[in-house]
């Protein structure tokens, strides 16, 4: 069995524990459902099916603020088509960032301090797993629920958008190429950057509550940055998005390497001073 698999063993056990706690994952699922399904469905359905042309026309006029590239994409559609297309493609994009970050932060914040609080850190500390394996296992276990929920939500969102907006704009059009870049090139590194910070906090604080609070404070600016950047990815040129993703990946790798050092056996045992 390879070293990687011990990392996977730790991640799998963490995920198994999450699965056993509906009180934890149910709110996360509701959050994803709201952002990816309920809100888009209601808004897009209202725009495409409410026959108040004056309101839709007024909303369509506000789309003049979009950059030329985006305006070109919606050129030639009806006001309802333009509005719903713009909402689906440009304005809901940041949701794709908020959902994974929120879920992964919640999981990651408890990942290491939880071991300390439950006393199970003692077991891990005496196990043959290396600190790096423990860190990577926890990272994977924090990353997967948020990212997989987002991918699943993205799939459902795509279906909703195509079913509701598609008829207005001449057929199925979603995901656009920019969304592919966003989901698979820009979101993962931002998630990794966030988790590198959250796991460091989780290794250092003394309680889950402290970890949640500190993570919330630290990740809020990151979420805002990610929110802004993801909008920019969809509104700007594709090359900008790729460059932004590359920079984010570099930052993520640097952050993850630094974060690995925060996991020590003494911290798992809860005998090393709590510092941020």
């Amino acid at each position, binding site marked *: *069995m390879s070293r990687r*698999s*011990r990392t996977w*063993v*730790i991640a799998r*056990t963490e995920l*198994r*524990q999450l699965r*056993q*706690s509906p009180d934890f994952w149910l709110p996360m699922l509701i959050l994803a459902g709201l952002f990816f399904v309920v809100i888009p469905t209601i808004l897009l359905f209202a725009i495409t099916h409410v026959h108040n042309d004056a309101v839709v026309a007024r909303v369509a006029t506000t789309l003049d603020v979009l950059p030329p590239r985006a305006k070109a994409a919606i050129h030639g559609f009806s006001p309802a088509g333009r509005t719903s297309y713009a909402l689906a493609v440009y304005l809901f994009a940041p949701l794709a960032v908020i959902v994974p970050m929120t879920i992964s932060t919640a999981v990651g914040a408890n990942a290491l301090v939880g071991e300390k609080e*439950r*006393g*199970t*850190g*003692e*077991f891990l*500390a*005496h*196990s*043959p*797993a*290396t600190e790096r394996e423990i860190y990577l296992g926890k990272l994977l276990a924090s990353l997967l629920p948020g990212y997989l929920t987002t991918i699943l939500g993205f799939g459902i969102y795509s279906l909703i958008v195509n079913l509701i907006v598609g008829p207005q704009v001449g057929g199925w059009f979603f995901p656009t190429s920019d969304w592919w870049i966003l989901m698979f090139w820009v979101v993962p590194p931002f998630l990794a950057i966030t988790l590198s910070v959250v796991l460091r906090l989780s290794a250092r604080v003394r309680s889950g509550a402290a970890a949640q609070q500190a993570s919330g404070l630290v990740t809020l600016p990151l979420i805002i940055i990610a929110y802004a950047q993801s909008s920019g990815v969809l509104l700007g040129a594709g090359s900008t998005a790729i460059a932004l993703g590359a920079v984010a990946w570099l930052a993520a790798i640097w952050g993850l390497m630094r974060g690995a050092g925060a996991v020590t*056996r*003494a911290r*798992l*045992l809860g*005998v*090393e*001073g709590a510092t941020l």
Partner: protein
Amino acid sequence: MQSVVAGDVVVRLEHVRRAFGQVVGLSDLTLEALKGSVTVLLGPNGSGKTTAVRTITGALRPDGGRVEVFGLDPDAEGESVRRRCGVVSAKPALYDRLSGRDNLRYAADLWRLGDDAPVDASAARFGIEDALDLRVGGYSTGMKTRLALARAILHDPDLLLLDEPTSGLDPESSHAVLGLIDEMAADGKTVVMCTHLLLEAEGLADQVVMLQDGRDLISGAPEALVARYWPNPRVMVDAEDRSALDVLATMDGVVAYERNGSAAAVELDDLKRVPDLVARLAADGVRLTRVVPHEPTLEDLYFAVRDRGVE
């Protein structure tokens, strides 16, 4: 019980120090545990027993001194050391949301035992095979300790470290723990056990290391330590009229005599003197109710070391 014989040193700690900020965990601990022996670390809470165990597996890095386990430095070669160690900590350190089987499976995977890991056999050894598919959160304290024991021996460790393993256990579970220690030692495994319950160490220990304030006060085989503090045999003598026993203080062969309102404790130069003493007392009309040799326990030893210091 297996006697200590000159063999490989499995655990060697030399002048080990470890502090946690201002709090000293270990101030100067030196000990050796030989292959196939049972070493009992005795000491009150806060004396450094848990820190010693954590240092042995390399879970904690010492601030100073030298640690060697299986001839390896646990700090530098921790993975190799920990692979051969089984640890039962003071709290069972189990995952409450998982089943007993998942807990054992997790350990089996971390120790890379593969699919053939003896999960069921380990559980059966401690009588919890029927509860293996239940969530550990619903286990009693005794069941949790049994599961922790099953997990600790899953990979057939060469060194078993037990930190207060019988704390809060019912007699049956305590018996299972002590039975395991006996079996492990009989199989040639090395056992290091921390406890402040002197009775449970009685009869198990090949070597006792008494700790206080993070340092070893005294160590050695229990019999040798007892002999050091009580070089002469002792006999407890009681009679209907206890004041009549005071004549013992003047008899031949009596090294020390003590009577504090209860039975008399008589220290003799030789246990063979007892029949003469009994005959003499009987001749003097003393109606004896009890004459028993008194073998000091570890508890006696513990308090003697504490009260009289290291001798």
